[in-house]
């Protein structure tokens, strides 16, 4: 199999996954389909990739990927740590932890108010932020950030190690 064919297969698999994601969200409202689909897709693509005959992934390419991955991790763990600490601060900012009274955004009407936390959010951090669905969005954002960081560093090191140099022959 040629490399371009492999990329075509990747695109088809991605489209199928988008479809399954839609079915999971809208139709059956269960995450199991998309979760199984992603794992199966990864396995299938790994097997197919081994059949690619013209990968030309030599030692220079491996070095570029390694350096990019290392730099990505160096930056990403800081971002991940900062966001995690922020989430922990919000997590502790409630009665029963380090706060005796509810913070204003969890009790907008004051101590004697009957307003619930969910009734007023106004874009402020609320308890809902801790729900699994929103955590999923946050994780997806972090994954995309990681991907962008890797691609950025990949371009940088590829350029540094002569990827797009013109031939003098």
């Amino acid at each position, binding site marked *: 199999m040629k490399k371009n064919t492999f990329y075509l297969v990747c695109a088809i698999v991605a489209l199928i996954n988008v479809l399954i994601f839609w079915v999971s969200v809208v139709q059956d409202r269960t995450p199991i389909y998309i979760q199984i689909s992603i794992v199966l897709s990864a396995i299938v693509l790994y097997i197919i990739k081994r059949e690619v005959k013209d990968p030309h992934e030599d*030692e220079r390419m491996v070095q570029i990927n390694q350096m990019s991955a290392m730099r990505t991790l160096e930056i990403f763990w800081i971002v991940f740590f900062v966001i995690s600490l922020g989430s922990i601060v919000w997590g502790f900012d409630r009665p029963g932890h380090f706060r005796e009274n509810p913070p204003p955004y969890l009790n907008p009407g004051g101590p004697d108010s009957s307003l619930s936390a969910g009734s007023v959010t106004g874009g402020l951090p609320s308890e809902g932020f801790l729900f699994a669905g929103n955590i999923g969005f946050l994780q997806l954002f972090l994954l995309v950030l990681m991907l962008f960081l890797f691609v950025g560093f990949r371009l940088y090191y590829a350029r540094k190690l002569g990827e797009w140099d013109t031939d003098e022959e």
Partner: protein
Amino acid sequence: MKNKIKVYRAMHDLTQEKLADDLAVSRQTILAIEKGKYDPSLELAFKMASYFGVTIEEIFTYSAEGAQE
């Protein structure tokens, strides 16, 4: 690290593509080595020397200037 791959390639009348194929690397890798942007692994350096029938020292000479970080 400096190298004389371009010289040896010219002596053997080889294109970058042919040398890359024979050494199982990409043409861009040969080009990057020739331009001094990439220092090959010891294994690839030995393969190159063996390919041209010379010692490594005849092709590669160490130079701190321009060494990869």
